[in-house]
């Protein structure tokens, strides 16, 4: 990356953070959204993939529909309209997931249906800012990718520590941390990964700052 790019990034840091949903404002590790499914149901990569499929088909369509309809709604109406739209979309997503993926979808219990009211899907009902359809699509896909990265990472780490496997493939013959399969293990692993994530963000911000100052000095 060129020095002038770093200057631009540093000058527009807040905007950069807002746009980079996968890394700088990851919905799980930075904002703490969708914690229930990740902490409790995210014990194996298979579960993680099922959660990611549900979020992929739920988040962006819900945002598009709500951005089209809720432009003139007040906050109390939005509070219920967002979950209502997401529940309707979810009914179809859940039905087709059940039809094509079979009973393994049911193994996630309440943690798949609970996505309909998760702040990851319906988080912006309290905002007064109106979203355009294009912005909803872009923002929805960015949030989805952020969730996918975090969810699969947590699931892979938990499966490896709890069962010694990754995506069902045996890696080592011993379970290093069996508690990783329980909710308290999930809290701890998400906390540690979130800590590592925020350290990486801090280091990146420092690097951007140093490079931007260096570039200013050169010019």
């Amino acid at each position, binding site marked *: 990356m060129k020095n002038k790019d770093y200057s631009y990034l540093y000058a527009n840091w807040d905007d950069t953070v807002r746009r980079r949903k996968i890394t700088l404002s990851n919905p799980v590790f930075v904002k703490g959204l969708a914690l*229930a499914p990740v902490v409790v149901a995210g014990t194996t990569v298979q579960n993680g993939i099922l959660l990611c499929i549900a979020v992929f088909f739920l988040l962006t369509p819900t945002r598009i529909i709500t951005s089209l309809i809720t432009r003139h709604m007040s906050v109390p109406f939005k509070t219920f309209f967002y979950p209502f739209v997401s529940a309707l979309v979810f009914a179809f997503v859940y039905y087709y997931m059940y039809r094509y993926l079979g009973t393994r979808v049911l193994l996630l219990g309440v943690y798949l*249906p609970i996505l309909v*009211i998760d702040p990851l899907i319906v988080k912006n009902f309290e905002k007064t800012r109106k979203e355009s359809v294009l912005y909803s699509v872009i923002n929805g896909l960015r949030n989805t990718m952020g969730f996918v990265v975090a969810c699969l990472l947590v699931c892979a780490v938990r499966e490896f520590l709890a069962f010694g496997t990754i995506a069902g493939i045996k890696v080592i013959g011993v379970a290093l941390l069996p508690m990783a399969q329980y*909710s*308290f293990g999930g809290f*701890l692993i998400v906390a540690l990964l*979130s800590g590592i994530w*925020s350290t990486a963000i*801090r280091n990146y911000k420092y690097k951007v700052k140093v490079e931007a100052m260096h570039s200013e000095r050169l010019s």
Partner: protein
Amino acid sequence: MNDFLKMMVEFFGYSLVAIGAQNAIFTRALGLSSGMRMLNDPKKNTFYFCGALTVFQVMTSVIVYYVMPLVTAMGFGAYRRFVLPTIIVMACTVSYVVVITLLSRIVSKEKFKDLLKSVTSASITGAIVGTVLLTNYQGMNLVQSIGFGLGSSVGYLFAMLLITEGDRKIAHDKVPESLRGLPITLVYISVLALAVYGLTGHAIAL
């Protein structure tokens, strides 16, 4: 008399299970994201939020309990599982309208304004939807559903009080910079969840 006693035992038994072994936050992480948002929002009051959540929880449990047989009677029995979240969201909406209408008549205008934000946020959270889903999946009867719902809300209140107090007392300047904020709160919740598990010795089925 025997039936009444049996009903009371069932009610309190399910409430206790929901407060301890099946705690909404420490065991099931239900409504955790909303709880964390409330923690960071000084405009929302923990007691108002959890009090409203308890009322909504009980009302939603009762409405869904009576509506689901109608869904089956209308010929949608095979799709119960898929339409259940929509029914729960609609039940939450009805509960909210009833509570807000009553509140606007009972309390003063200033107090109503003060309550509105906490009540609106509490009206539809993971704790409510998750608990109602659980009571439906496990085929609980009305007494068990209300007992479990009430216990779940009380357990949520206890958990949020512990988390709020813990978060206030953590000396953030002594916490390593990497763990400040969300990570240290999750570590704290993890320790409490481990303590609950140690006390009850009960792992949940999803």
